[in-house]
């Protein structure tokens, strides 16, 4: 499965469009993390807990996108885009979407 944010695949031809596929994940950290983030807001700097949290949820969202693409028999997902929205204090939704396609290699 190729996941890419290009609109084409180098060296390959798109043989069929299978529609939009998506994956999303809503996560939050435990209150302890939020408390530490509150303390950190006095000093400034990177909030590692939240970086980690968003990284994990992004991976999960991409995984769900991949699963959906596999279930409809796609070879690749093109033009993948990410979007993030903070839906509540300390919780964020990560949404990832793209076009599922079937491809064949050129000249094979």
């Amino acid at each position, binding site marked *: *499965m*190729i*996941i*890419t*944010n*290009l*609109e*084409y*695949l*180098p*060296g*390959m031809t798109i043989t069929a469009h299978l529609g939009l596929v998506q994956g999303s994940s809503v996560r939050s950290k435990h209150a302890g993390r*939020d408390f530490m*983030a*509150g303390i*950190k*807001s*006095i*000093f*400034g*700097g*990177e*909030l*590692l807990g*939240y*970086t980690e949290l*968003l*990284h994990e949820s*992004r991976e999960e969202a*991409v995984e769900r996108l991949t699963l959906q693409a596999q279930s409809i028999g796609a*070879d*690749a997902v093109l033009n*993948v*885009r*990410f*979007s*993030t*929205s*903070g839906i*509540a*204090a*300390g919780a*964020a939704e990560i949404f990832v979407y793209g076009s599922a396609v079937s*491809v064949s*290699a050129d*000249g*094979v």
Partner: protein
Amino acid sequence: MFDFGLFAALLVLGYSCGRIAERRHYQSIRKRESELADLPAIATKFPPRAGLYQQQLVCGSVVIGSDYFKSFMAGLVNLFGGRVRAFESLLDRGRRESLLRLKEQAGTVGASMVINVKYETSSIAAGVTTIEVLAYGTALTPLGDSTVQQVLPD
């Protein structure tokens, strides 16, 4: 009186810690930027030279919080309007850091460039100004023509 003392202490603490953190961060950003200068990350959709590439989606992200002093200054500027310099540097650090992390990930997969780079910024609600910057793009590793079979999808 105690309240004012606490407020002043937080301002001083925020100012000094925030400044030190920012200076260190900029030092580290500049150092890594020069180290990764030979791995270009560009915004075009097509590679500068046509050819066969192995591709992979790479991303880098960072969550940065403002300090007490910056938040206070921003609140002050907000009254009169104008440039909020305190937050400009915060966003600049976030953007550059996330691009560096993207390049680091591209480097570990052996890519020679990253194309179609896009940025995404969101403020995650944690009471104070906390921004998340995500940079993502397609890492390209050049392939010889003989390896065309390997790029076929499963």
